[in-house]
């Protein structure tokens, strides 16, 4: 585990440096193409300046930006006690220094993600659709996967790499558009210095090619690594819960629902446990942010000997027929036994799920719940004007206990 974190940190740093190099050379070439070599240095400076500002913003506020853009609401334990229990269980299993902040997203599509800077400042967000569909073991599997992302320090990496990717795309777009418009308005830049016009033309050509290729190159690096991280987080989740079937069956349920997430976008997509976009039959191309979910399920179901990282590695190799991806030093682990399933095996009907989801969102949005002794349940919105309510069925008068269930946000 410890070695794996170290290697993961190093890889993150390498990737960030690699992306930084791409960014810097892009800045240099664009600068040089426009105004010669001196301008190239200015290009590097400008590119690094933009990069630095975006990095600092995302380091200190990236998680808040991501959570807000996903419409996640911070909740207190009384909204969903089981979710809090499970997060705390995984916090203990993983030895996190602090309980991650817990958010619920009002979206019927089942999904989850983790974000934050480090294990001390981490957040976990799950959708209402996920909570309504999964049983205890399955939810534990998903939370363990997210906690593994936190332990592996993937959360900071995803935020930073996402910002860097955004910056590279932005700069290339600006340059290419600028090129397009300036060529329309009489090629002001290229003919200014006629002495080394030839060299400048070549530089310009290289810059254009790089501006087109850099985002693709950055995408490839980013997505290749985020795919590998999903496998690693699956392996980590099994090691924490000692129960591969929980996560496998959760992934199966997630794959079985074909609802697009309305609250996800292109930048946040790689954070989620499963790809939030299902529109097209997603081919496993270089662009896909997640490994095929069926393959992840098969790897998990194929683990019969134990729940150690080495067992996942072995199963991964036999299912994908590829070389394993867990760093060697992390595999010198003691043997870990798989535990038995827990008792919670409630079969839940579609309509009941829908109602539970509705109730959950009502709790998140501050509704109060009243159970009348005549058997009727009343769900009262926070903007209900009166402090008292009469049961429409048996005429009993109840006091509305406002603010009993509140969100912390």
């Amino acid at each position, binding site marked *: 585990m410890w070695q794996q974190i170290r290697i993961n940190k190093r890889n993150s740093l390498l990737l960030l440096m690699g992306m930084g190099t791409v960014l810097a050379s892009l800045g240099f070439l664009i600068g040089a193409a426009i105004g010669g070599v001196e301008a190239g240095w200015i290009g590097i400076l400008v590119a690094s300046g933009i990069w630095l500002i975006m990095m600092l913003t995302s380091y200190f506020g990236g998680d808040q930006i991501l959570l807000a853009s996903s419409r996640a609401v911070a909740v207190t334990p009384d909204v969903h006690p089981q979710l809090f*229990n*499970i997060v*705390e269980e995984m916090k203990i*299993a993983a030895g996190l220094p602090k309980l991650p902040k817990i958010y619920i997203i009002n979206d019927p599509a089942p999904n989850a993600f983790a974000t934050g800077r480090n294990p001390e400042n981490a957040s976990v967000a799950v959708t209402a659709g996920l909570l309504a569909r999964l049983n205890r073991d399955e939810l534990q599997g998903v939370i363990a996967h997210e906690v593994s992302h936190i332990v592996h320090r993937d959360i900071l990496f995803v935020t930073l790499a996402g910002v860097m990717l955004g910056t590279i795309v932005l700069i290339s777009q600006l340059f290419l558009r600028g090129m397009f418009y300036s060529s329309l308005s009489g090629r002001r830049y290229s003919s200014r210095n006629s002495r080394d016009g030839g060299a400048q033309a070549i530089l310009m050509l290289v810059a254009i090619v790089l501006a087109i290729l850099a985002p693709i190159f950055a995408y490839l690096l980013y997505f290749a690594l985020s795919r590998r991280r999903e496998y690693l987080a699956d392996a980590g989740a099994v090691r924490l819960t000692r129960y591969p079937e929980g996560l496998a069956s959760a992934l199966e349920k997630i794959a079985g629902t074909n609802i697009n997430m309305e609250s996800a976008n292109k930048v946040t997509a790689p954070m989620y446990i499963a790809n939030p976009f299902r529109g097209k039959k997603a081919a496993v191309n270089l662009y896909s942010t997640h490994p095929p979910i069926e393959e992840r399920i098969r790897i998990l179901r194929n683990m019969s000997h134990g729940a150690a990282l080495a067992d996942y590695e072995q199963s991964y190799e036999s299912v994908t027929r590829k070389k394993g991806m867990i760093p060697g030093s992390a595999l010198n682990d003691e043997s870990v036994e798989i535990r038995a399933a827990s008792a919670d095996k409630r079969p839940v009907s579609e309509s009941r799920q829908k109602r539970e989801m509705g109730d959950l969102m009502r709790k998140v949005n501050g509704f109060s719940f009243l159970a009348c002794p005549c058997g009727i349940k009343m769900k009262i919105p926070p903007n209900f004007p009166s402090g008292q309510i009469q049961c429409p069925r048996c005429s009993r008068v109840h006091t509305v206990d406002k603010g009993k269930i509140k969100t912390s946000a």
Partner: protein
Amino acid sequence: MGPMLILLMFLVILTIVLVAAVIGIYNALVRLRNQVDNAWSQIDVQLKRRHDLIPNLVETAKGYMTHERETFETITEARSRAMGAHSVSEAAKAESALTGALSKFMLVVENYPELKANQNFLALQETLTSTENKIAFARQAYNDQVLFYNNKIQMFPSNIIAGMFSFTKRDFFEIEDAAERNVPKVSFS
């Protein structure tokens, strides 16, 4: 510069390097030992939470489960024995008996559909399930820490520092084994 001076400087540098290394390893060992202690206290916290939970659980279930007096007695007895335990092995044995009594209780509950429909009981049941899980996960985390710490104090060069400042090996926490053999498992090297 005479050869004596060079030798002296060499010795000074060597001493500084050695002292720095000793300090570094010592601090790493202390940090690991604290992590082990911290993991141990996590188990303790969860066991206490389970003790606090039981009276409430028994009180709620009693009204529905009129024919299960024996089950309740076993649980209450195991709880008081666990709370009054004086040694680690005694506690481990009592806690393991308590775990057994509670899991038997959970099986019996399945025969009382009315109890299972009680919202208050359902909340208690979830808390109990979670507490049992937390105990298991805390034990798991503790054992992982102990393994790492024990490996460290046995490996060169940290074993020298560990010997100098008497860092000793820690025992694994194995509830089942302890119940059978009366002593916590000790790892041999």
